[in-house]
């Protein structure tokens, strides 16, 4: 499991997160939501070891601080909010760069399996830089999947950290990507995803964490976090949460929101 305790993060001398605690369980999709600038990416980057922090972050019971990058790379993969590529690599070459960080090594089947998983089977030899934004985002996801191909290894859960994995995707690929996350968790792995779309979050998550102003406003099962009060105070506009009679998953209609 992932456990962050008493996290403090300062960026350019400004305190962004203070005394924040967070938990995610294997087998769960844990989503972090909140307004722009609320600190979601900062929290994720602290937990992936990209930012200096005080406090403690544990992955599967081990303190992250003492671990080398290559040890962490076999336990968790990270999809950043934005990626750039400096040289004209092809799609499959990009996926292979991720593959080499993980445990599946040189296995060439993993790269093409990962590409078909994100719906890009025929794209292996296209130049990455000539793909559309959404296609590039899916290639990056395939790269992360290739690195962390097995959700459980040596009896230990492995982790996907995804920062807005569906932000650039059309609706069918949004569902496809969320299903990948869901499957990964169902097979025993853990997923921590930063999300903006509350409906998709509600459909696919087990736990939700709502952030505002660098604090956690609410955390827990979806139905407990997704309430009118929590959302309205976090987002600063009145949001109405609805529920269909025979489906427990709440949904939100933007039309019903009052600014």
């Amino acid at each position, binding site marked *: 499991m992932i456990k962050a305790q008493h996290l403090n993060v300062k960026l350019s001398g400004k305190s962004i997160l203070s005394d924040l605690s967070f938990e995610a369980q294997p087998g769960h999709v844990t989503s972090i939501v909140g307004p722009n600038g609320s600190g979601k990416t900062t929290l994720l980057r602290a937990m992936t070891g990209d930012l200096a922090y005080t406090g403690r972050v544990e992955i599967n019971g081990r303190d992250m601080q003492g671990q080398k*990058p290559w040890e962490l790379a076999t336990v968790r993969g990270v999809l950043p909010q934005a*990626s750039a*590529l400096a*040289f004209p690599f092809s799609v499959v*070459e990009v996926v292979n*760069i991720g593959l080499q*960080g993980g445990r599946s090594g040189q296995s060439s089947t993993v790269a093409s399996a990962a590409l078909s998983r994100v719906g890009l089977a025929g794209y292996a*030899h296209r130049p990455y830089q000539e793909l559309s934004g959404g296609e590039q985002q899916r290639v990056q996801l395939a790269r992360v999947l290739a690195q962390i191909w097995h959700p459980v290894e040596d009896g230990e859960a492995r982790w996907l950290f995804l920062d807005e994995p569906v932000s650039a995707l059309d609706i069918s690929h949004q569902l496809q990507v969320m299903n990948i996350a869901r499957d990964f968790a169902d097979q025993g792995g853990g997923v921590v995803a930063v999300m903006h779309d509350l409906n998709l979050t509600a459909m696919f998550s087990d736990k939700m964490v709502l952030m505002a102003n660098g604090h956690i406003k609410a955390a827990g099962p979806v139905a407990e976090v997704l309430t009118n009060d929590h959302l309205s105070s976090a987002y600063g506009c009145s949001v109405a949460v609805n529920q269909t009679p025979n489906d427990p998953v709440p949904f939100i209609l933007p039309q019903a929101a009052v600014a």
Partner: protein
Amino acid sequence: MALAIDADLVPVDRLSRARKLHLLLFGLLIFVSLGSLTTGATGVALMDVLWKLLQGQELSQVERIVLFDIRIPRLAMGLMVGASLAVAGAVMQGLFRNPLADPGIVGVSAGAGLGAIMSIVLGGLLPLAILESVGRHLTPIAAFCGGWVTTILLYRVSTRHGRTSVATMLLAGIAIGALSGAATGVLTYIANDAQLRDMTFWGMGSLAGASWGKLAVAGPIMLISMGGVMFMGRGLNALALGEATAHHIGIEVQKLKNLAILAVAASVGAAVAVSGGIGFVGIVVPHLLRLGTGPDHRALLPNAALLGASLLVGADMIARVIIAPAELPIGIVMAILGAPVFLWILLRQRGVVDL
């Protein structure tokens, strides 16, 4: 539509093709090296010399001097300097995540040259104890320090939050070049005649001063840093995805960056110390290789070493024969060969190299 997409496809398994290129480039290297040994101002024909050696005959005094004291050290120097500059270019481009980073263009060579010139002109002012302990290593060490400081400075100035701004990098390179030029200008006023001659030689770049002595000092530095760099392929590939992603994939980014900067400074410093400012090798060679066999650094780095060595030895051959018996500085030959290729690259890649 489908046709257009097909035409854009990258060849399947470029990496193994790039690895097959090793052999081809090695063949080219042998070919060019033999050519370089057999051409020159004096009419010593290699075939005759080889024949004599095979038959166990004594070489004449002239033949021995030309072969062992002039051509072979010069060839070895050309090979090492060419390989070093090309590899340093490829590493810098990987480090800065930018295909325009080149030791010559962004001022690393200028910085190293300034260090070298300072050691020539001002070296006498150093305490005797230091002078005695470094001896003839002084100039390479000074060139290394100049290149090192410049590379670190450049990286600091042009890279923010793991991203390099091309515009800032190039402008910083111009500033460093200007500073180095100005400092050199000042030093010309205090230099004596012998020092002045040395300095002119730095400006243009030449292999004419090649000797076993210089090779003994600079050669190991170039070989060690090139050898070390060959292990950075995977790290530089990951770095192409950004520093954060490289870290996620398991690369010790800070260590990689420090080592890459050190290696660039050492190889450029050593190359500049023995041959002056030779430009364009570091940008033209990696570029052509990327166009041909893709950007994978695991194959690019060794290929760059092989092609860079051949290119410089070839250019040196041209420099020696084109106005024989006089000799053109090789820096001039490289500029004439390299600058148009560089412009052509810019034209082709206008979209990719956006400022």
